[in-house]
């Protein structure tokens, strides 16, 4: 079968005929209203176009002769589910509006309870913190006392050493003095004969 794809169907030499593309848009109502009116007006006064469009329109109507059986309809579960969701939303909205007061009372009670619990918890926390600080202070005092005791022990030891050292120094000095005196006396007693004055 011969098939051609022309872009224009106007009679050669007469450019006033609408193209067949325009006629197809006209037949399937895809033109704006003014364009539809323009083509309809042309059709009334142009026997040539009227004959061609009549043939197309006839074939178009003939296509409707072939009807297919109604295919399996879409399941109704999905719309029912959608409506159930919609009903639940509407119900929830109504419940929210009517129960607003109750919800606000509950909210106030909840806030009060929350504040009370918060205060109790804060007091407990403060008490534990003070105990901890006191214990740490006590432990610090004991440590300081221990340091002081050790320090005192060291000081007394140093003091006793110092005293022992002084005693030794005195004893040494005394001993040295005695030795010196003995040496002097020995020297006097052993003067050689013939020495003058003796």
């Amino acid at each position, binding site marked *: *079968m011969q*098939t*051609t*794809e*022309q*872009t224009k*169907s106007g009679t050669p030499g007469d450019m006033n005929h609408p193209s*067949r*593309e325009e*006629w*197809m*848009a006209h037949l*399937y109502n*895809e033109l704006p209203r003014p364009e539809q009116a323009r*083509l*309809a007006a042309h*059709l*009334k006064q142009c026997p040539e176009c*009227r004959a061609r*469009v*009549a*043939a*197309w*329109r*006839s*074939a*178009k*109507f*003939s*296509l409707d*002769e*072939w*009807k*297919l*059986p109604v*295919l*399996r*309809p*879409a*399941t109704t579960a*999905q*719309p029912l589910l*959608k*409506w159930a*969701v*919609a009903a639940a939303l509407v119900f929830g909205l109504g419940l929210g509006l009517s129960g607003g007061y109750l919800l606000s009372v509950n909210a106030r009670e909840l806030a009060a309870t929350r504040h009370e619990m918060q205060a109790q918890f804060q007091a407990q926390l403060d008490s534990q913190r003070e105990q901890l600080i006191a214990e740490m202070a006590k432990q610090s005092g004991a440590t300081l006392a221990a340091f002081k005791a050790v320090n005192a022990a060291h000081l007394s030891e140093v003091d006793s050493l110092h005293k022992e050292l002084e005693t030794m120094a005195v004893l040494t000095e005394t001993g040295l003095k005695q030795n010196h005196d003995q040496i002097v006396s020995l020297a006097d007693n052993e003067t050689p004969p013939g020495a003058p004055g003796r």
Partner: protein
Amino acid sequence: MSGSFLKSWSTLFSVSDEQAMWRVKLQDDPQAFAQLVRRWEGPIQALCTRMVGDGHRGEDLAQETFARVFARRKDYQSEARFSTFLWRVALNLCYDELRRIKRRRESFLEDESAGGDERGQVAETPGPDLRLVEQERAEAVRGALLQLAEPYRAVVVLRHYEGLKFREIGEVLEIPEGTAKSRMAEALSQLSQILSHTLIDEGEVKCKPQNRPSRELLVI
């Protein structure tokens, strides 16, 4: 009015085709895919039936279309409309099927000329679901459509039966909108000729399409 209101209200809770397909692509979401199948199995089955001219084969092709869509879910581009993607897959499967039918027919004719059996051509077997009263005229239209070349038939099916705009047909077939319109005009011209001959041959002069234009013209 209440129906449209309910419809528009219900759409508030529905997921778009593109969103559903995105879930299928990224998460292999079976529920989203089932939703797409529910929405589109009717139109796709109708498209395939019109293209190949057989209801049973159309049903098989529709199932194959969804199987193909799932298999190719990673190829889906987020910026593309899901319907365009789906129509293309379905049409390509229809073209493949028509080529197979043509090969079988040619093989059958060779066998017949060589003295083979006389079974009827599968593609031209009347659909079982056609109503008996309109069967002859419906069969004439079905036969006329099958005589159209596939590019013209695709435009007719998408525009006339599936209700796509010419712009959308251009997107699906990847042709300019003007080409879609010119193919439609050519298809209607050929159908007019085929149907007039067919119906005259069958003695259905009263049903001849050319007998009705004078009344239809007044509608314009």
